[in-house]
């Protein structure tokens, strides 16, 4: 790993924690994540791909742990693996769409898919090459601590005292997210609304 990142990491961890980020675990988890991702796409049976996706999510949670962000890892397990994936499996089982109709629809739109993938690939390559210039020194400065007060101050600056926080520069993004959720909920209600 490049020295800058390593030293930055070491300073941020509190002294009591022995380094968990041993290379062996890192490669294991990263490998698992990639393998899971590949499996998700290649599997014909939708339940298998869902399981593979769960595998990926869990290994990513492991990666977060290695980044000394247990809270994010736990959130990842609860929200993604425990919550959303269960509902995914629910939908797969309940709707039980036959495979044939899926394939026919999939085949017709593959040109659009490929072009979108190429666009995304170009974006990644561009960011990777120009890395330094684009994000000069935006290293992860968020230090992990079990003290919720510290986290609050880090996230929301000094105003993060108990109860009087305001989102500062994140307000706009927060509103968009909630709007998105609202749309999703309405969609769900309309789609499942049977003539009772």
């Amino acid at each position, binding site marked *: 790993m490049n020295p800058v990142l390593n030293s930055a990491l070491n300073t941020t961890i509190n002294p009591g924690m022995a380094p968990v980020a041993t290379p062996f675990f890192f490669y294991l988890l990263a490998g698992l994540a990639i393998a899971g991702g590949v499996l998700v796409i290649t599997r014909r049976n939708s339940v298998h791909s869902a399981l593979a996706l769960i595998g990926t999510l869990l290994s990513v949670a492991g990666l977060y742990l290695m980044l000394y962000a247990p809270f994010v890892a736990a959130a990842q397990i609860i929200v993604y693996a*425990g919550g959303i994936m269960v509902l995914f499996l*629910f939908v797969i089982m309940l709707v039980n769409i036959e495979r044939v109709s899926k394939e026919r629809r999939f085949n017709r739109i593959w040109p659009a898919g490929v072009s979108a993938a190429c666009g995304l690939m170009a974006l990644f390559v561009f960011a990777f090459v120009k890395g330094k210039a684009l994000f000069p020194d935006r290293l992860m400065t968020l230090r992990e601590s079990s003290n919720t007060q510290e986290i609050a101050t880090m996230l929301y600056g000094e105003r993060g005292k108990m109860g009087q926080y305001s989102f500062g520069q994140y307000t706009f993004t927060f509103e968009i997210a909630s709007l998105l959720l609202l749309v999703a909920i309405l969609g769900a209600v309309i789609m499942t609304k049977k003539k009772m």
Partner: protein
Amino acid sequence: MPNFVMSYLGSTVTPGQAGNQFWALIYVLIIFAGVSVAVVAMNWIERKALAHFQIRLGPMRVGPHGLLQPIADALKLMLKEDIIPAEADQFVFWVAPLIGLLAAFAVYTVIPFGPSQAVSDMNIGILFMLGVSSLGALGIVVAGWASNSHYPLIGALRSTAQMVSYEVAMGLAVVSAVLMTSLNSTGTGTLSMIGIVQAQQQQGTWFIFKFFPLGLLAFMIFAIAMIAETNRAPFDMAEAESELTAGYHTEYSGLRWSLFMLAEYAAMIAVSSIAVTLWLGGWMRPFPNLLQAPLWEFTFSLFPGLTFLGLAAIAGVGTARMPSHSFFRIQRIGLGVFASLLASIALLLLLIAVAGRSADTSIAARFSEGIGYVYWFVLKVAIFMYLFIWYRATWPRYRFDQLMRVGWKVLLPISLGVLIATAIVGVIIS
């Protein structure tokens, strides 16, 4: 070698913190063995207690008073043929019980049997537990799907919907407990399990008694939600024999089926240990602050020994009253051996307790202290286990839609209310 071992015995830091993988492995093995023994004991107690509730005797043939029945069951299940339905999904069918088991046992890495008796003290302990226990629902969904037959699918969907909806109520109840931890001097709460128990110690009250109605209410919600979470007693819609034959594990047989049973019991113990840690002050003995005097300290440290002595006495009375017919001779010997085993454990514990009292810094003192912690924790969990059985004997089963109604329309609003009330009271007091 001894001082090497001794140094570890005396360690006051959980292996996780000490970063010592080897010692953590030992702890994990101890906990696995402990939980398996607990599951075996639970199996026996459930059958006997349920039987005595229903004015019958329960297993009496296999070993004295059916003591060897769980072992016989385990053997039977191992020898049973492992049938996989024809078009079942081989891989998924094989993986499902493993997911269930993984979810059930992963929780034990964080359960604190004592201030330093836990595999690792994650600072997100309670979150990790909720996350992993919600993975259990995956195992069930996938099992229902893989059996590729009508009833298990419906059973699986039902039990998953039930688990997901009760997780919400459970999570909120847990949050209100965690809120209480932040009312100590430093004003910052903690998610780590050991931290929660220490907070209860500092605040001198178990959270069940804190802000009187709120703590109890949150505890009640958690107690109800945890029964639904493990598909037990009044909420056992999944294996409602009368309609869906046996729910999601209909197609399983033999060892694979026993994995599901193991997962269910392990989940029950895990969930009730969360309740104990959060509301009933984990490993703390009753009235730790009030009765500080060394005399009290000593009497409480005698409790483990006395309990085993009581058990040994019961077993002894059992051997004495065993009928003298030749058929019972072996059983009488068996029960006698069991009684003497219990008696010897009792003696050992009493010895440690007495030795511990005399010299404070000696290994024995720390040993008896450690035993005390584990004993009180296990005692509280055992009470919960008995409640599970009691519910199963008395309550009929909820219908599925009533179950969901209770989950969403009753438990959720109350737990939200309790959460808000705890927050308000907390801010006002601190």
